[in-house]
């Protein structure tokens, strides 16, 4: 009979899709234990986002309007206070969830299972699977504290679909926290892209160090990305070399993706990169070296010079 609270993630007054992945996990926990779940919409534009989130089967949507940009210190006390009436708190393991929920858990004295890939329910008892050590080990963990805090891996929990109905909403008081005065939000540069979001795209095309320059990303990779309607990603080496911006990094220290199709171009496949994409359904590698480690996970491998193969591939895709 677990009571579950989903902590929503807002971006510019709208719920990010990551919120719906947390809703999926919360639903599983609520249904599996015969409990229920609520959603907490917190941040600037919490009211509008709460309306948006009212059609997903939550018993209630809580609203806490907090003006100005996000800082963990500013949100945590309010989330913790709201969380007191719940058994399990769930958020997506995005940069936001990974930042906020640990502080909330500390305030509640709750144990945390972070970045989980599955929920197990056995006789009403919860346990979670979490990929560890760059995805080389899957651990199953139980949380022993009275309250449980969980962050879920976006690529492993499909975004919840609207289930109709309207959840009643309720304003909750914003709690103050002395720590919040010590951290002042100055601004955020949001990178806008017309392309799908890397975290939930059906197709991801990534480039590596072999691209050799930012211009080659623009001239060689981007036409293929757009022909496929894909999201663009990159290896760590390509991000560090400044070919593309860091939020496109796929891998252990970047984003973990699991699209239907992942195309790795000029990426050798270091274990840290594989940790971020080996859950993809179909993996294609384009590389000059057929012995490259990416071959361990690739379903299809085109041994070729990418500067010949990628433009040819773009043309072939356009013919479909």
């Amino acid at each position: 009979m677990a009571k579950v609270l989903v902590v929503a993630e807002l971006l510019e007054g709208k719920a990010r899709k990551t919120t719906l992945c947390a809703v999926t996990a919360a639903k599983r926990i609520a249904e599996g234990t015969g409990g229920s779940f609520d959603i907490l919409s917190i941040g600037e534009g919490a009211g509008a986002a709460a309306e948006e989130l009212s059609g997903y089967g939550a018993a209630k949507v809580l609203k806490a309007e907090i003006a100005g940009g996000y800082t963990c210190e500013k949100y945590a006390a309010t989330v913790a206070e709201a969380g007191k009436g719940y058994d399990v708190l769930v958020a997506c393991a995005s940069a936001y969830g990974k930042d906020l929920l640990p502080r909330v858990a500390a305030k509640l004295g709750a144990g945390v299972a972070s970045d989980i890939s599955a929920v197990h329910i056995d006789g009403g008892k919860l346990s979670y699977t979490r990929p560890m050590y760059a995805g080389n080990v899957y651990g199953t963990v139980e949380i022993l504290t009275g309250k449980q805090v969980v962050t879920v891996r976006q690529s492993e929990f499909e975004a919840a679909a609207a289930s109709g109905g309207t959840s009643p909403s309720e304003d909750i008081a914003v709690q103050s926290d002395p720590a919040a005065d010590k951290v002042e939000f100055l601004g955020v540069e949001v990178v806008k892209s017309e392309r799908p979001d890397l975290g939930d795209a059906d197709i991801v095309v990534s480039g590596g160090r072999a691209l050799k320059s930012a211009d080659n990303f623009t001239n060689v990779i981007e036409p293929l990305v757009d022909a496929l309607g894909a999201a663009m990603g990159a290896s760590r080496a390509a991000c560090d070399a400044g070919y593309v911006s860091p939020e496109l990094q796929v891998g252990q220290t970047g984003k973990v993706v699991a699209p239907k199709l992942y195309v790795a171009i000029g990426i050798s496949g270091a274990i840290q990169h594989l940790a971020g994409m080996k859950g993809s359904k179909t993996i294609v590698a384009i590389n000059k070296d057929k012995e490259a480690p990416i071959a361990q996970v690739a379903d299809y491998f085109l041994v070729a010079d990418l500067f010949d193969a990628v433009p040819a591939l773009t043309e072939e895709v356009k013919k479909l």
Partner: protein
Amino acid sequence: MTADDGKTLEVKRELDTGVATVKVTGPAVITTSDRILHPESVQNGVTPDGHQYAKLEVGGRYASLKGIMQAKKKPIDQMSIADLGVDTAKALNYTKFELPPARSGETTFVEDAADLVDKLHNVAKVI
């Protein structure tokens, strides 16, 4: 990361959607992305500002021999967990560790771009 007035730090944080700037007043706990590890990222007040660091292909900053020797002379404070006032009651219990599910299937080597598109469209049916 910049510290202009000696009291506050302005730090940039990488998010999923971009980069946020926040100003923190100490004492503060800061964790860094390993991307910060370029030789020019840290000013130690000794090396002149205009110093030309070697350009490394991959970011990296190595401790100097002098720095290592100095570090060895620093006093080490031993503290017990009780000193820190940390609750050590077990909050988590791992019941199982297993290998991740293996990827099924072999790698198919394709001839060329046309062959690849054909396989993705007609066999894997992903485009």
